[in-house]
């Protein structure tokens, strides 16, 4: 039984089919990359899994239970965390607070505990802080030390991306959705992050689905690649197979001039 099973998933915005009858599954412990040209529906796909967009048809089953109709916070509670393509940190909260607030759904102290400073409240605060620091230290010296109490807005672009991943990790997920984790990073940084993504699976036991445009990252890290175009899966399989698929090359590069025009979209 696969961890995440998506069947016949469709979503339409007005008349636009952002996703059409999508079939998708992820097994526990896999790293799957979702690739496709701009506007292929990759981010919509993530938004749908994380509950931010409601599908018009189809079903999303995570660990045997449907995610349909859940709020994003409930999806996170089930064990799916995500990052955002355009980094969206809580810029004026400190770095530590960013990962502390992400543990919200794993903790349960309320007004009473805070007002009377109960033992349980203090213990939980300590645990939240400790786990937050632990998550941050995964990225080596980049996010810890004197930076803990600095606002997230002082971080460099690459470190903001790292903090986003740390924040997602802090929700204690089983499935991690990474939306373009290395976008805007230089080759060395992306190589480093590629290695970290591998360690996220081996050390933390996360299953990972990631959207990525950087093909070297996709090649190095993923077990399986799924190619989306116009909201449909056009190919899937290991990288070497997908990379040579003519349909994939066509989707990325367009059809060579003068070739057969059979596709209905090309007709006037």
């Amino acid at each position, binding site marked *: 039984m696969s961890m995440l099973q998506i069947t016949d998933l469709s979503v339409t915005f007005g008349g636009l089919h952002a996703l059409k009858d999508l079939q998708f599954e992820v097994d526990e412990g896999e790293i799957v990359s979702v690739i496709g040209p701009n506007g292929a529906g990759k981010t919509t796909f993530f938004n749908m899994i*994380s509950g*931010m967009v409601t599908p018009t048809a189809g079903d999303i089953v995570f660990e045997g239970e449907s995610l349909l109709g859940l*709020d*994003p*916070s*409930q999806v*996170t*509670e089930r064990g799916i*965390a*995500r990052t*955002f393509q355009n980094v*969206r*940190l*809580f*810029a*004026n*909260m400190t770095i530590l*607070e960013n990962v*502390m*607030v*992400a*543990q*919200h*759904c*794993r*903790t349960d*102290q*309320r*007004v009473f*505990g*805070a*007002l009377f*400073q109960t033992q349980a*409240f203090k213990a*939980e*605060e300590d645990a*939240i802080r400790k786990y937050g620091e632990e998550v941050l230290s995964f990225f080596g*010296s980049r996010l810890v030390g004197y*930076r803990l109490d*600095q*606002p997230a*807005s*002082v*971080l*460099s*672009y*690459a*470190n903001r991306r790292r903090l986003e991943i740390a*924040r*997602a990790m802090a*929700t204690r997920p089983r499935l991690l959705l990474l939306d373009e984790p290395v976008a805007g990073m230089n080759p*060395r*940084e992306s190589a480093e992050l590629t290695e970290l993504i591998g360690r996220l699976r081996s050390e933390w036991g996360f299953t990972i689905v990631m959207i990525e445009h950087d093909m070297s990252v996709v090649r190095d890290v993923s077990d399986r690649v799924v190619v989306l175009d116009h909201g449909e899966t056009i190919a899937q399989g290991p990288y070497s197979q997908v990379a040579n698929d003519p349909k994939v090359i066509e989707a990325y590069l367009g059809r060579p001039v003068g070739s057969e025009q059979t596709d209905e979209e090309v007709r006037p």
Partner: protein
Amino acid sequence: MTATSENLSMVETPGVAWRKQIRFALIGALSSAFIALAGMPVGLDGRSIIQPVLSMGFLSLLWVPFVLATIAGSEVVLEGMTARTRDSKDLLAGGIVGLGSAGGLVLLMVLIQNFNLRDPLVNWSPQLLNLLSFNRSLAVGGLLWVLLGLILGVFGGAMHVLPKKLCSRIRTVVLSVFAVSVLETFLTDLLEGFRLEVLTDFVYYKRGGLEVGGALLVAALALLIPLLVGTRIRDVKKQVVDLPAEERKRVNLILLAVSAALLLVLPFFLGKIANELLANVGLFVLLALGLNVVVGLAGILDLGYVAFFAVGGYTTAVLTSPNSPGFSPELPWPIALIVVVVLTGIVGLFIGAPVIRMRGDYLAIVTLGFGEIIRLLFLSDWLSGWFGGAQGITNIPGVDVGIGTVKGTDPRSVFLLVLVFCAIAIYVSWRLENSRLGRAWMAIREDEDVAEAMGVNTTNTKLMAFVVGAVLASFSGAIFSAKVGSIFPTSFLMLVSIIILVVVIVGGMGNIAGVIVGALVLIGVLGGPKQPGLLQEFSQFKLLIYGALLVWMMLKRPEGLVPNVRRTRELHQDEFLQDAWLKGEIDTGDQEELS
């Protein structure tokens, strides 16, 4: 980078910006004429600052040339630039601004003499003309104003030419004299509590304002005290900061305990008026602390906050008053309070539930509507069997606390009660801010969608902010109705919501100390919606000043008087990042690897 800090420091700020001076001269002319036509000089003439030299009415005009000339003269010195040496041209610049301001008044005087526009402008009166021309002829009056404007303007410009230290001394002296004069009611009350009437009689004129001798004494003290203790306070402060964390904590605790004890003793040395005033301030501190949770922490712009104040007040009235028309259990106040808190919390949930799904502007408008709906329900004939409609509910008993009764006729007891509840509210705000819930509120304020995606149940969390805010407002409402003894729908106008919001904004959103300072300044000095402040004469201009203050704050200091660090960062993001960069705190990516 081509420009290093060395060659940047060669750059001097450019000379006097004459265009800017002329712009400020025109602003000065308009402001002076506006203030005169708003009726401030005439309306405030009765209140003297220094008897018989200076009245509040004249002060309302005299600050214009001075302050505007100072503002017009200030120049931005960017990092790496050196400020130019100021010279006589700056005095001239100040003079121009001052002349402009005076010119506005002279023109107004000429116009008043020759035309009659009394119908649209109530203050277009011979009385104003007399006052402006110092009861002499137009020519003499005009000439005097030109001279005054010139002198004050040059003086304003001189604030940039004179040495910094001297300027700050002058500022301290002027502000102290003004403050001592404004705080007259309060200080007299306090000094009488210590049996020091002699001092009061010497300093203050018996019908308000400082005596000339008193003013000189205050000025001398303002000069001498900083000279004597100035550096010592800084030394002590430095010593405390240098202490190890443990001991610093202890020192802070002792300071807190001492100030709490002083506050608790204070009411016994104050007379009726001062206690009444501080009790009113306290009621607004409670309200503002509650709204601070909603607006400052969770970022929900609630413009109908008065609704919870009203529910708290009316529920207390119904439960305790024998005159309550529908249902009159005549409960003692403390028991009623429990019901009030629970009920207001529930009302918070009911109003919050539909409102919370909206965002930004829509939410603000809907809360505004709910605030009015609640008031209109209390006013309506439909519910007048319960709440008495426009007649309200009267004869609300005071709070029986065993050793005495807290009621409006004894402001001291009210102030003590308010203090206790303010302490509770401060504790609640402080603890919640630094908890899981507080972090969730902040995350929602920063980015609601992401907060939701990170596992924060935004609906519940925002509702919680609404409920906490409502409960704090209900404290205020409960004390208010016991204090006043009767309750009417007119006490809960939309204006109250706005004023509470202004208190929060002016004080400093998201900051407990800021909120308290905001309430002291606005409610204590200017007065609340119905409660008089120290400057009672100002009551008719209260809203004008509130508005002007709000605009000025939004432009110059959006983070409030006592800013919250986070909030400041948010509003001055660019400057903050630039500073961090200069201090080398900013993270520039892979430096550690490169080095």
